[in-house]
């Protein structure tokens, strides 16, 4: 008997507490900047695409939803000829971001990926590429990697010695 009264009291008490329900979509929940939502491709500080099409994201992807093809541009940079993510398969696990050696692929706190047609969830490079550097504003892969591109010769990167003069006589 006492227990039933107590239960009714407990239930009625909730009438005066604040509701936990969030009025989505009018009211949006807070998602941290490092939340794992929609995937983007970022650019390096000089505004060039960061992605070098190394295929590591594709191989890390547990659902195999990333496909790309590498191409070498005239400036010597490698870029994806196409870069496709099938978000209808993506599980937003973030492995691709972890695998990416150039900070190109990043997950954003945008989770609103709903479409009536499934094929609208297939994102190509132009849909994925954003203008900025995302979470890592300073990193520039080609400054670190030692290979020569149009605007950076051998030995001009970070922590690179000038090219060895192989015809020099000094030891």
């Amino acid at each position, binding site marked *: 008997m006492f227990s039933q009264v107590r239960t009714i009291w407990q239930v009625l008490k909730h009438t005066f507490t604040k509701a936990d329900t969030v009025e989505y979509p009018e009211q949006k929940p807070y998602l941290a900047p490092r939340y794992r939502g929609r995937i983007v491709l970022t650019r390096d500080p000089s505004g060039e695409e960061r992605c070098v099409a190394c295929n590591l994201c594709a191989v890390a992807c547990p659902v195999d939803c990333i496909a790309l093809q590498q191409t070498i541009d005239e400036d010597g940079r490698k870029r994806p000829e196409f870069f496709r993510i099938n978000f209808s398969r993506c599980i937003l696990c973030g492995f691709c971001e972890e695998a990416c050696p150039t900070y190109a692929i990043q997950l954003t706190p945008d989770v609103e990926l709903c479409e009536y047609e499934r094929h609208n969830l297939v994102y190509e490079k132009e849909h994925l590429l954003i203008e900025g550097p995302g979470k890592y504003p300073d990193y520039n892969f080609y400054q670190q990697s030692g*290979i020569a591109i149009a605007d950076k010769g051998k030995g001009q990167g970070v922590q690179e010695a000038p090219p060895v003069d192989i015809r020099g006589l000094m030891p």
Partner: protein
Amino acid sequence: MADIDPKKSAEKNGRQVSENQLTVYIDDQPYQVDKNDNLLAGVLANQLNLPYFCWHPSMGSVGACRQCAVTQYQDENDSRGRIVMACMTPVSDGMRIGLQEQHASEFREQVIAAMMTNHPHDCPVCAEGGECHLQDMTVMTGHSARHYSGKKRTFTNQYLGELVGHEMNRCITCYRCVRFYKDYAGGKDFDVYGSKNQVYFGRQTDGVLESEFSGNLVEVCPTGVFTNKLFSAHFTRKWDLQSAPSVCSHCAVGCNTSIGERYGAVRRVVNRYNEQLNGYFLCDRGRFGIGFVNGEQRIRKVSGIRQQSAEKLTKLDVAKALVHFKGQKFIGIGSGRASLEANAYLKKLVGSDGFCAGLTGRQMALAAQHKLALHRYPAPGIPEIEQSDLVLVIGEDITQTSPRIALAVRQALRNAGLAKAATIGIASWHDSAVRTVGGKLFSPLFSLQGMPTKLDDVCQQKLLLSPRETEHTLEVLNQQLRLLLGITSEQGKASAKGDISADRKAFISELIPMLLRAKNPLIISGWSHESAAVFAAINELMEILHSDACMGHQAGVGQEEKQDEATADKQPRAKLVLLPPQSNTTGLLHLSDAQTLSLEQVLSRLTKEQQTGDIVDGVIILENELPALSEQQAALLREQAETLIVVDHSQTPFTEMADILMPAAPVSEGDGHFVNYQGLCQRYYQVHASVLPVLDSWRWLNLIESSIFNAGAYGGQKPQQFKEVHSLTELDLYLSEQGIEWPFDSKELHREKQIARQSHRASGRTAQMANISVHETKTTQSPSSEFGFSMEGLAADAAPDRPFSWAPGWNSNQSVNMLPGQGADTSPKLDFANPNVLLESWPLVTEVEDETALSSQDKHSLTFIDHRQWFQNEWQSSVNPEFRMLCPGNQLIVASDYAREQSWQPGDYVAFSFSLPGEEHARQGIARLLCHDELPAHLVAGNLLAPGRSSGEGVIRLSPAQASDITLYQQAEQERLAQAKADKTALLERLKRADQTIPIRMVAGGLEDV
């Protein structure tokens, strides 16, 4: 680190105990190792992980990288041990070593750490990433964090041509590249420069690598210093490639390859290890020549067949187009680049009397001699060639026609040095020591050539002769041998007449004693000169060397007299290798019989059919561009054949004129067997399903049979049951039922699961076709095949079945060393029975010697010897834009004396006019002149012939060229190069576009298996 499994080692103990094995205790577990090899090889052969860089199974050890350190203990009581380099340590029985001992393990990690101080962080853009030996070894040693904070060394790169890329920053100075290129392959334009931390591997100046084995640098380099430029241009990671075991289709050696495909386009070819044949190395034609399968010249549509439905071609369409030829008489022309099955099937369809092997009469006479040689003297494989202690090369520039054989010959020549090293107790794997001891000591190589070759630098004696003089020299050699050995000439063969020049006399007198003394003499020749007489003389020479008299002589020369004779020495020692031009020419030899037609006979039968009443209604040309036919002859063939059915994969003159054209699958898209120079039937597997209506030739022939040759309506033959075949196994079964002598035991292979063509890490499955349809297609089914188009499936257990090479922890091609070897070769070997039938139809006709007439007639008539480089002399690969860019244009090599006489300088342009035997019209043009000191004045070697064409000696006249003609020629050359460059770009663009539209096949099979 070491994988210790007592069960496994115990099992090994039980199984592999043989004379050559010793027991070594590795981390207190007994293992069996080969006593003639070093410790590293022994450890790896037991599938234990031990990192290394500079050691290579074919190139031996130099101890340059210090990576394979292990701890060696004195005995079981020794707990400290000492660090030794496994690759430089010979094995001894009961030896105790530790792989896991801490000091050695730390040592290995520190060696990697030191290499990593200068190795750049460019793995993401490195084409080697994912199959990099350095990556594997770094992970294996456990080195994961960088402690060095200084600057990284950089190098400028060199341009090494269109095939091999160079990125020197990545170098870890293991010296493998220069050891391969210079020491192993005899290249001259690549070396190591600098000292200390500034060692540079490259050429003196930028430029195209001259060696025909430069592509092996890509596989030999443990990291990404050398990369395959063609692969990099349209790159994909190794883990994404769909691969299948294949056989190189560019020459008769039949090197085993693995072709990789991604998004419907073939990306690259890598070597597939076969210890009986090509081992670890391929030539550049095999590696880079595959581009033709993606080329613009490929035929992808049928013509002459009306397609009813808009979607696809059906069997009914084909039947409707063919049915009104039912019962007609056809002649079938086979080909040396079509599979054995396709050729045999064609022969079955048209009958023996209607089959032509696509060879001219001259070539048929050659084929007859060749078949006799194959019947009598089984050809050795490449490992056996490498054991020879005397090599005689006759009339074939093997460095350009079958480069892999030339590489093996180069190794054979080291045997003298190896033997010398062995006498002072240096093991053969001790590479630098052996080379130091050996110095310039080579086993004898004798060469009778028409032109200078790249083996000349290691030749003991060479003569530059025209084919006819070669034949004459051989005859004199045979005669002298017979005299020496007291063999009476059979059938009263005319003794070689005439005097020979002093240099030829010297050559012969030097050769004979060495030939008789040699334990494993090897004679090599080939089809380039198309001289049946030379082949006949070689056969005779082999007969003498295999005769009892010769063996008796050899036994007499040997020290031990009777015992030697009684035991092993009854085995004939001399070996013979004859190299046909195409990947399946040997298969054609097998199929040729007394009734097989030559091309001339085909033409005459077509033109004379009215008179003789021998009505021929049509011709079926199977994958053959018939380079031997002139334009007039081709036109005549077209005119006289009422119906011309052509099955081919690329455009030829005949695909243009065909009534019915059927697109065939090239080596990467089809299944079949190629027969190599030894008669080994080697299977190549489909790498990816072809896009319909491209089908295997034998599938088209099956459709042709069902419409034209079905129900025995033709030729009064016994009606035979027609069967529709769905796979190569079914076809082999069907053909063997037809009473065709067939080498395959046509058992269906029963595996519970197929072997996976893709690696277990293949990526992008749910996205690669999502732009076409978001609903993923099923993987292509391939019932009744050993291989599946999937990442699921078994890993292959035997080496020949491996679509790609991979072992746990070993992603690079070095994984080969971690996988069990293949043992005996499983490919069936053809026997060439009844060679005499072909000999009777094509007897050796002694050509009328009009040398005197010729020379007196005109002093300026010179003998033309064909001398094309590896990228020019094979038809399929010569369409590649990169190969066309390598072509230097017309070049003629003349004797320096002759040039001086004419006051021409090397590099001058001259006008030529030349004709081949049997040709009426002389070809004219401009060529650049090169001079050679040792060439006789009457010989001119040049590259004027079209790819695929072969010839005997031609007649050429040279004259000074007009300045205006030279300008025109130079313009044409520049245009040709520009065109090749443009084609290269266009091809790449097209391939990239095609990546977005991956073709879908549900079932890899016939026309209606969509």
